[in-house]
């Protein structure tokens, strides 16, 4: 398949946007194989141009070194956006293997405070490119029943939020229309780092069960379901700040916040090999003080 692979390479290298459109429409394991096989400098622009859901799924299916090679070559805000969407083990593996990612400030992009919208949102909310057709969206969802959603969001090719769809209200005759033609454009959105307290009583909740969330660079980051706020309120009322039953902070995000903190500490330790022992001792002391 030498000539075939040569053509594939040319396609990926010269036309990443078109290649991305094709890759996000084939089975994800196949897309992952194509991206992992490509030289990372050529695969990364294709990955960045793919719809966020398909791109994150492909990363999840790749071997860690392949995923790392691609993610390390992405613009930091796009890397952060995709890392929010991959499964927690994938995220941890990628970040563990690729220390250079930390130099890009990605830890700051990914870490969210426990009282913020980002801590309770659904980071894997369904989002599709605006140029997808309704039938493509439905086929994608049908193949992933576990991720079936009623509220679906629409992104442009730069992963900016451009619309939303209520699948219950979709016209069955709209199957061949592009999402941009059937979506509600420019939907209200919440900032990733807004405090839960600040958004809890927003009038938007009278209109929506779920509100999309964007990060500081305007990229789609996830969606906040109202039930997450209700649970937060219950939790706050009970004063139960750390009970797993309260589920104030989704466990994965909580673990992630802790992981980010741990890696930041490790990073600062390795930067100064001399005082490592002292800093490590301080860290232990701090923990014991906290516990006390």
């Amino acid at each position, binding site marked *: *398949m*030498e*000539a*075939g*692979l*040569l*053509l*594939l390479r*040319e*396609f990926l290298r*010269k*036309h990443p946007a*078109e*290649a991305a459109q*094709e*890759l996000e429409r*084939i089975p994800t*394991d*196949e897309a*992952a*194989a*194509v991206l*992992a*096989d490509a030289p990372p400098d050529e695969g990364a622009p294709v990955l960045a141009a793919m719809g966020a859901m398909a791109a994150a799924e492909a990363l999840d299916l790749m*071997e860690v070194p*392949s995923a790392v090679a691609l993610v390390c070559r992405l613009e930091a805000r796009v890397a952060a956006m995709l890392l929010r969407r991959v499964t927690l083990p994938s995220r941890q593996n990628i970040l563990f293997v690729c220390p250079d990612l930390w130099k890009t400030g990605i830890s700051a992009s990914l870490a969210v405070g426990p009282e913020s919208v980002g801590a309770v949102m659904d980071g894997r909310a369904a989002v599709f490119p605006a140029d997808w057709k309704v039938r493509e969206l439905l086929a994608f969802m049908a193949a992933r029943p576990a991720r079936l959603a009623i509220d679906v969001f629409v992104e442009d090719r730069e992963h900016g939020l451009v619309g939303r769809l209520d699948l219950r209200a979709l016209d069955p005759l709209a199957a061949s229309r592009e999402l941009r033609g059937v979506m509600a454009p420019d939907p209200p959105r919440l900032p990733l780092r807004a405090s839960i307290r600040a958004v809890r009583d927003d009038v938007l909740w009278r209109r929506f069960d779920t509100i999309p969330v964007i990060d500081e660079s305007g990229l789609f980051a996830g969606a906040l379901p109202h039930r997450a706020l209700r649970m937060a309120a219950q939790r706050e009322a009970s004063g139960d700040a750390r009970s797993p039953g309260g589920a104030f902070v989704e466990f994965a995000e909580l673990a992630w916040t802790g992981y980010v903190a741990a890696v930041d500490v490790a990073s600062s330790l390795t930067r100064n090999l001399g005082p490592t022992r002292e800093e490590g001792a301080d860290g232990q002391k701090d923990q014991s003080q906290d516990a006390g």
Partner: protein
Amino acid sequence: MARKIKAKTLARLIVRYLDDFGDEAAEAVAESQPDDGAELLGLLPPDHSWTLLRSLPVGDARAWLEHSDEETLRRLVLDAKPDAPPDQDLPALTRQAIALLTA
């Protein structure tokens, strides 16, 4: 172990490349060895194979056909000439494919 790219996936992506950027794609494979070219013809749908062949210098396209297997040639011939006899042998298919190329 890394997964290999399936032939069907490769064909789909190349078809998209040919549909959108046919001349550029033909230029990219113009220097390919006849064996590689023949293998590519076996991978692609026949209409795309003909598009690619007709974008190449005739000598190169002819060499690709001469190195193609019987099944590939039969698909190419039947695509271009549906009333062609289906039971031709390899030399006859090669001659007919070359004739269709230069017709």
